[in-house]
Structure formats: C-alpha cells, structure tokens
C-alpha cells in the first residue's frame, strides 16, 4: 500500500445529465455548500475547462459538473483521479465563509428526510420537519399522523436517528417535538415511549 490510501468514491447520476454526484466517505470534508478554494489537482481541471461551476459539497458527496463539450465517458477517469487526490488533502478545501458544522448536520438531516426515512413517514401520513440544529443536536417536529402516534418514538429512534448518525457520526442527539396545534386524525393517543432522545 502506498503512502496515501485511495479514498473510496463512486459516481451516481443526478437529474442533471452533466452533473455527477460523487459519493465520498462521511466526514471527509467537514463542511457543506460551494467551496471557495479547491486543492490544486481538482482546481486545475476547472482551469483547463474540463469541469465547470457550480461545485457543491454535501455531507457525503461532491457534485461535479462537466463543462460543455466535454463528456464524462472521456474525461471522467481524469476527474476521478483528481478528486481522489483532492480528497486526500481535505485541508486544502476552503469552506464557504459563512459555513459552520451545524450546516453539515442540517444538510444531513434534510437528506435523511428527503430519502428513504422520509418516504416511510410520508407513506404513513406523517410529517417530520427539522426545526433547529445546534451543537450537534437536531430538533425535529412531528405532525400529521405522527403527532400522538405511539410508534413515532420508534420511527424517530430506529429510522431517523440511525440514518442520520450514519451521515453524521458526531450526532449528539435528536429532540422530537409534537406540533401542539396539530389536530391528529382519530382519537389522540398518548405515546408510550418518551419522544426525547439524547445520548447519556
């Protein structure tokens, strides 16, 4: 094995044909948003007109866009090597000036709710929204069928928190509120489980 182990990445398609979502290991970069500076190997591809803006960092992915007239099939292998070299030196990536680590947690939580966990909740007529992110702790609000649902505790703990922790290992806890003015369908039931989850 050489000095720097290769950073495991793979590319996934996005809705935009010229943009690929490069899935990277969680916690590699430590920020989200559009970076203001890139390491030399990746920056040179922008200078050569292979890649073009916008470049977007997500909690576990980097979105790269191919410049017009270029193709992923032809230039992709070059981009992959440059990205891996760039990920090997995460300090050279410059986060947006207003960035803070809570943005990463917020983005991760939004991703979870947009994905499979959100689908599950919506499929049951429930609604979960992120209301606050502070100091590695997420506060969510349950409404719709979730409000007053005795299983909501399980959903929050087993599905939401597990999925979120995978994207943000530094998570301290999830605080779940039920929206007070919500009018649950059917009789209101008391939750058997506490809806507040916090690591000891």
């Amino acid at each position, binding site marked *: 094995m050489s000095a720097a182990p*290769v*950073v*495991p*990445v*793979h*590319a*996934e*398609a996005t809705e935009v*044909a010229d943009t*690929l979502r490069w*899935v*990277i*290991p969680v916690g590699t970069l430590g920020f989200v948003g559009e970076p203001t500076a890139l390491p030399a190997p990746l920056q040179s591809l922008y200078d050569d007109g292979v890649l073009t803006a916008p470049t977007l960092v997500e909690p576990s992915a980097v979105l790269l866009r191919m410049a017009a007239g270029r*193709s*992923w*099939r032809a230039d*992709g*292998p070059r981009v*992959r*090597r440059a990205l*891996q070299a760039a990920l090997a030196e995460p300090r050279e990536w410059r986060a947006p000036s207003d960035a803070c680590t809570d943005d990463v947690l917020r983005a991760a939580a939004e991703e979870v709710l947009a994905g*499979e966990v959100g689908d599950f909740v919506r499929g049951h007529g429930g609604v979960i929204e992120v209301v606050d992110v502070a100091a590695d702790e997420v506060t969510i609000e349950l409404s719709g069928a979730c409000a007053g649902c005795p299983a909501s505790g399980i959903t929050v703990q087993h599905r939401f928190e597990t999925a979120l922790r*995978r994207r943000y290992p530094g998570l301290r806890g999830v605080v779940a509120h039920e929206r007070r003015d919500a009018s649950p369908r059917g009789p209101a039931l008391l939750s058997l489980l506490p809806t507040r989850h916090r690591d000891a």
Partner: protein
Amino acid sequence: MTLDAGHCAVPGEDRVGLDEQLPTLALVGSPNSGKTTLFNALTGLRAKTGNYPGVTVTRYVGRFSVDDQEMVLEDLPGTYSLAAISPDEQVVADVLDLDHPALARPDALVVTLDATTLRRSLNMLAQVLATGLPACVVLTFTDELTRRQGSLDVAAFERAVGVPVLTVTGGRRQELGPLRDLLLGWSAWPVPALPPPTEPDEVPGWIESVLTTSDYVLPKVDERTRRIDAVLLHPVWGSVVFFAAMFVFFQVIFTLASPVQGWLEDLFGFLGTQVRVHVGNRYLASFLADGILGGVGGVVTFLPQIALLFVLISIMEASGYMSRAAFLMDRVMAKAGLEGRAFVALLSSLACAIPGIMATRTLPSMRDRIATMMGAPLMTCSARLPVYVLLVGLLVSPSARIGPVGAQGVIMFALYVVGALSAMASAWVFSRLGRRSGPLLPFYMEMPPYRMPSARSVGLAVWDACRGFLRKVGKIILGTTVVLWVLLNLPTHSDAAMSAAGVDVHDSSAVSSYTIDHSVAAGIGRAVEPIFEPLGFDWRINVGILASLSARETFVATMGQVAAAAHPDQPAQGLKHLTVQSGSREGEPLFTAPVLAALLVFFLYALQCASTIGVLRRESGSWKWPAIAFGYLFVVAWVMAFLTQLVVGMLT
C-alpha cells in the same frame, strides 16, 4: 468446475448461429451465481448447445418471449473476471469485445451477482459496465444473505451502480415477471455516464464506496456450513468420510442400477428374438438382431448406471461437497508436487477425460499442464463404466459378498481408486521429468456454503449426461458396430462350402459361429494375437479391444455381437459360455478370472478413446504428446495386465 458428460462426445460440433433479427441478451456471472438457473427459468430449457469457434467451450443459446416480442438469451460461461486466464474466461472476454471479428456482440447484458459474495463479484461488474453495453443486474441468493444475517439496501445499490437492479431468488416464478418486463425494455436501460474504474488500484475504492453506500452487511459464516466443515475438512475425519462416501457411491451404482439394467437386457433380447422371427432376409435379420440390438443395445443397457453416476456426481457438486473433496485432495496433490488445480482437472475426468484435459488450461505452467494431461485419461471416466460393469459381472456373481457388502461394488471401488492413484502417479512422474523451478501460484478455490441440491438441477445434469451418452452411442459406437458387423460377417460362405466344412446349415447358431470364425475381423484378431496372447486374450477379445480404440463402450457392443451370434437366445448369458477355440486352453471357458482381471486392468490403463487423443492433440499443440500418451499407456496397460494375469492365475 464443471462435470458434464455432454461435452464428451461432441467436440467440433457446429456452432450455433445467433439470429441477427432478434435482440440478443447475454447472461454474465461468476460460477455458482445462479446464472444457469436463471437461464433455464427464462428459456424453459429450450436451449441449443454448440461450441464457440476454435474452442470446445459449450455455448448455450435459448429463446424466450415477453408480450409476443421474442428475444434470444445466451448463457455465457461462468467467470470471475474478464481478464482471461482460462478458455472459459477468454470466451466471455471475446464476446464482450467490440473489436472481436468472429463473434456477434449481444445487444445487452444481464449480470448475475451472488449477494452473499458481493464484494468479489463487483470486480467483474466494474469490468462489464466498462464495456459500455446496456446492462442490468440480477441479485441472487438474497434469501441466503438474509438467513446468514447479512443485508443490502437494494435501492441504494441500484443508485450506486447506475444500472437497473432486481432480485431473483432461485428462479422463482413470481420474481421472473418483473425481470421479463425489465428485459423487454433493454433498449431504455440507463447506461452510467461514467463507467466504474477498471484500473486495479482504483477498483477496490469503487467497490468499497458502493458497498458502504448500500449498507452492505457481510453475511455471517453459515453456521450449518461451519459445523459440517469442521468434520468434512478435518484431515483425518474428512478423508475417512470422503472414502466412505465414495465406497457407498459404488455400492449404490451396482445395487440400484442392476435390476433396471436387467429389464433393458430382457427388452433387447425380446426385440432380437422378434426380429429373427419376423425378418425374412437372413442378412438383414442378423444385422438388426446381432449388430444393432446385440451390439448397440448391449451398450444402451448401461444407461441406468450412467444416469445414477451422474445423479450422485451432480448431488455432490450441487450440495457443495465436491469442492471439499478437491480441497482434501489438494494436500495429497501437494505431496505429489502438483497443485490443487491439477486435482480439479483430474476430478473432472471422472465424468470424461475431455473436460478434464481442457480444465488443465487453468494451470499456468506448461510442464504441469502436460503432466496433468498425461494422468487425466487414467481417471475412471464414465465410458469405462459399461466395460467394468460387464467384466465385473462376469468375474463375481452379484450375490458374492465381502463381509456385509457386495463384492461387485468393492471391486468397482478398487478400480476407481487404482485409476486415481495411477493418474496421480503418472502426473507426478511426468512433472518430475522436466520440472522447471518456479514458484507455485496460490491455489484459489471457492468453498460454497452447503446448499440443498434442487431436483431440477440434478435432473438436468443427468438428462445432459444421458443425452451425451446416447448421442455417442448413436454416432461413434453405432458406426463402429456397423463396420464390425460387416467385418464379422464377411466373407459370405455358400451352404455347400459350409457343409463341406462339416457345419449343419440348418443350425443357425452353428452357421453364424462358422461365419464369424472365418470372417475378416477374425483374421485381423488373429493377426494381432501374438501381442495379446500372453495376456490370455483370444481373437474375439482382440477384435473388441481394437474396436474399443474408437470408444471404450464399443468393447461391450462387440462382445454383444459375438455372444449374440453364438447364443442367439440368451445373448446376456452367452459371454459366460464362450470357450477358447484353439491352443493349449481349447475347450476351456474363455473368460476365466485371470483373463477378466487382466482385461479390467488393461481397460484401466489403455488410452482407448479417439476423442481424448484428438483433444490431447489440440491442447498440446502437436501429435507428440498424444503419441507419447497412447504409447506409454499401452505399454503400461499391457505390462500391468500381464502381471495381473500371472498373479490372479497363481491365486486361483
């Protein structure tokens, strides 16, 4: 490792043409990934087989239709990688190669991945996707993944690999519907904008990333498999179980198959009598009754044994025991200076030497390849089975017992063991003769978890083997038998000439005996008598041995013809009552214990198979090695048969 007698008799069969008009899909996957199960489930066994140009890797092509749209499905050989090492892998690489001149490329690929060994399988998926052909993935064995507490987020996996992914377990019907619909829309499958990397240093990172994203939890070692393996792979208990299993194997072949064989014999005997009664022309009646029914029919009666052999072999293979047997024997092979891969080749030769010789292509060193090729024809192939059964049946009666077990099965087992030991000894000698120093490459063999063999796959293997056997009977053996019948019945003699020689022309049995004794074949048999005399063989056995150079089973057909001529009423019993016609043993039974033992040993060693010689020629690149193999095996066969004859003669 594939044990398939279907390959045995059909080298050089014409190639299957792909229909240019229909969309063609090809199945790609590693061995044991459920590829063939899927193929059979989709095409409903309407497969055509043939060979790829230039190589004897069998090609399977079938058709299926979805919503009246007919499509062609090709089952490519199982492969772990497109970086070709073996001929099987070369075929897959060639088929997927855009620039390959001889082969039409499929329109789209269906990749089967075993969900329990996903990390290894993804390497091949990366190579397949790099071809740029439309592809979809079928995940198999997901039930086993769950049972062994592994898991996979299939939706995330599908996003990560960028092509459609479906799970199909064991070709279940309710899962085939969605697959058929998916295959119908192959032209609309998404092709990843950027295929996965194929550089050796980049692939592990891609695999790691894909598996992490899809939350792949590696299945635990199958507890059942682990417990069974603790015994079966044990150096001592494993070997004990292996030999006990083999022993039972041959007992079963005799005890279960012989009643069925008896019925077939009765059937052919009855048909022979009917032919004699109803066919007026004497020559036609003799041709049909002695040549076809007595000769070819005599070989066909061994179908039950062949079928049973393949039932047992395919159960051993499908249950996962065959790999363990090879692993156990790897230690023995290492002592002989050969690697485990050589044992795989020898093991394949149990079905037929031809796939065994072709399996030597996995050996990297030419020396080891030649050494293994020289040993492979000694393994007891299925073609020897009829000869052994016939001769062992004459040697000891079915009721004879050695302790609690049947003596016939014990002798059969001994023949297999001696064959295997001789094969290894021969491989060892040839590898010593010109060993070049070089590191032994690591021997890699998959230990699949124990699985319950499905009746369908066992049935298919047996069907394939029986079809291959009957096809061989229909071509080589029938051809040789017809030639023999002509040689045994020419020249013709007038009634007057026979009367002059003191033959009662009204006794048909005496007439046919006289005809055969004065036939061209008898002349040939007598001409080679000096060679075989010391072994106790007379001209009739010599003719059988000469005929068996085309295929070993022909010996049975020849003896059947001779016996049918001498004892038309009971050809099955006829052989027992044949007597020596001249010389010091005149009047004594021909098939005495020393002669039978010598014959068995001769068949154990001699290279009597035209197809094997042909394959040796092709695989070694010249006539030198087949000539050496034929020569040395003939000398060994003669010497060993002579010694056996002496020893058994002294004992009895």
